[in-house]
């Protein structure tokens, strides 16, 4: 067992129950309550995370502090957003537009290719993609590409996909009321069960 322990600790591909993966870097979400709930203290860096819910209820706003922080020094790619990201609002949130790239693929095949290439190429430090046709296979490729390109990838998916299996390191479900965002953390390294978090709506 003594010989096994360092092997288990050395590999980040082995998740151990209730063991906090402190060696894995994370990016604070900008919402202390959420960071506290996620084992590791934030969105896993260089990995794929998923936010599932109806598009428009607050997924992008939830990520804006992270986008603002990352865009100060490196490139952030937004792929296939269901609307045009509005420059005045992004600047207001502190996002540096110079480091923001908008990618608009016209077909699903191109979308999957764009996500993988943007994450893998190493130019972008963060990729935010809206991927309604994601499958376990495409998510696996995105996860590997994120690791390879050291890119933090956040994928917005419809709420109906929450029961689909996924290779994402972190999975969140999002819903909103008038004043609050309801988040349900359904998958994370060292997470047991699920966690519910409430955040004030911006």
């Amino acid at each position, binding site marked *: 067992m003594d010989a096994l322990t360092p092997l288990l600790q050395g590999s980040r591909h082995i998740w151990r129950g209730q063991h906090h993966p402190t060696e894995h870097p994370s990016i604070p979400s900008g919402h202390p309550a959420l960071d506290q709930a996620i084992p590791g203290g934030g969105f896993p860096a260089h990995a794929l995370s998923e936010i599932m819910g109806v598009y*428009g*209820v607050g997924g992008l706003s939830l990520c804006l502090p992270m986008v603002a922080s990352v865009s100060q020094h490196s490139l952030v790619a937004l792929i296939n957003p269901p609307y*045009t*990201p*509005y420059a005045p*609002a*992004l600047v207001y949130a502190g996002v540096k*537009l110079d480091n923001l790239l908008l*990618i608009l693929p016209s077909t699903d095949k191109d979308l999957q290719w764009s996500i993988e290439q943007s994450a893998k190429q190493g130019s972008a430090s963060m990729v935010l993609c809206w991927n309604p046709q994601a499958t376990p296979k495409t998510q696996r490729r995105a996860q590997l590409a994120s690791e390879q390109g050291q890119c933090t990838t956040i994928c917005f998916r419809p709420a109906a996909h929450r029961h689909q299996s996924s290779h994402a390191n972190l999975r969140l479900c999002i819903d909103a009321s008038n004043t609050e965002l309801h988040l349900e953390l359904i998958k994370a390294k060292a997470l047991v069960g699920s966690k519910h978090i409430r955040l004030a709506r911006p």
Partner: protein
Amino acid sequence: MSTHHSKSARRKCWLGIFTPQLQLDQLCITQSEMHEIEVVIVRRQKPSAVISANKTALQVGIELGQTLDRAKAIAPSARFIEQRPEIEQEFQHSIAIQLQSMSSEVICYDSETLLVEIGASESLFGGFDPLLDKLRELLSSLGLCFRLGLGPHPHASTLIARYANTAWQMDAKEYKQWLEQRLVTEVLPLSLADSLEAMGVHQVGQWFALDQRSLSRRFDKRLLEFKQLYLGETQTLPTALGFEETFSSKISLQQSVDNTQSLRFVLARLINDLCAFLRLRQQACISCELALHHEGRRNCHPITRIQLSLSEATQNAAQLQSLWQQRLETVTLESPVDGVSLDAGQLQAYEAKTQDLLLNRNQQRTEKNGLIDLIRNRLGTESVCTLCLYDDHRPEQQLETSAKPPAYVMPLGLQRPVGFYPNAKPICAPQGSHHTEYLESGWWLNDQRRIYTIDQDSNGTKRWIYCEKGQWFCQGVFD
């Protein structure tokens, strides 16, 4: 090296490069599978004979000079390809362009031999030996089978490269001794050699010992010209390859291909040629065009032209190869291709990148451009854009999705949606709304006036809406 070269560094020193199987080399480079099967190049003129064969074919018993029928009997499964001088010429030209990186004077001496003046480049490479090492390295990297020859004059160098088996560099005395032992059939055209052989003259030494004037009168005056040529008494040389302003290169395929995947070796070859061309001129390309020539002379499919444009001029072969590979994956060939040409469009002065320990602004820009180029060349120009702010009261005029720099960043403090619909979506009248804001354009711009409010739909989405002429529109969402 022989001392006569180093002592007279300023004197021209011509190196002969003999490439006996250009067509075979080109085939093996552009079609990798050719290494594994028996490939034989046969002379076009009758009687057909083997002029070159790859290692696999030689191992099964094919020999150079063998008749086609005999070769077919020995290796019936071999691929027999007819010699095509135009392919050899194209390939030799591309080799000559690469060699220009080592010498300012490169001559295509004949269809199988190149002449390179290396005397002037000696000091640049730190001596003859490092220069020759580099040259050998370059030729090997091109996948060439070659022999070098260095003699007291250019014609001697070509002869040594072509016929000398052991010593490849000779001074004047060694060269004369070596030449006199050669057979006349080796160094003279067949008709002239036959005339001499009929007289019982078999070696060059015997030929040189004869009275040349009477020989010329009796047989052919070309005999005297050949003697003068081989002894270096004739100074005339073919014209050296010029320094072309633009890059355009074509590779004719010896077997047509019907998918773009098979073109990757040809493309890699063309890109290497292009980058050598650019490096030599301290230039970089910002766009290039690939032309795919389809097989068939009459009623054939028109040439397929594929463009590649870059955000930043480059001379990096790996970058170009990666971009072209992605670009070609989206192309479907409607007809088999038997030739590929690459043209570098606009060329720009190359700006060398400085290397920093920390990621600097230029490096960030280059990385961003790399991703933009990758996506644009695969998905189209419209598929990638950046966001910019413009000073305008009208929300739809405040952003621009283009690569242009922002004109003006307006002071902000108002609540704005992160998701915006430039063409507002018509919606049903909202139940309740708040945060009213009045926006209007100048009277000179259609005099638009809108009252914006925020509401929330049944899904919980906060919307930025306005009413115009009784119809409600959603301009954005607070995602």
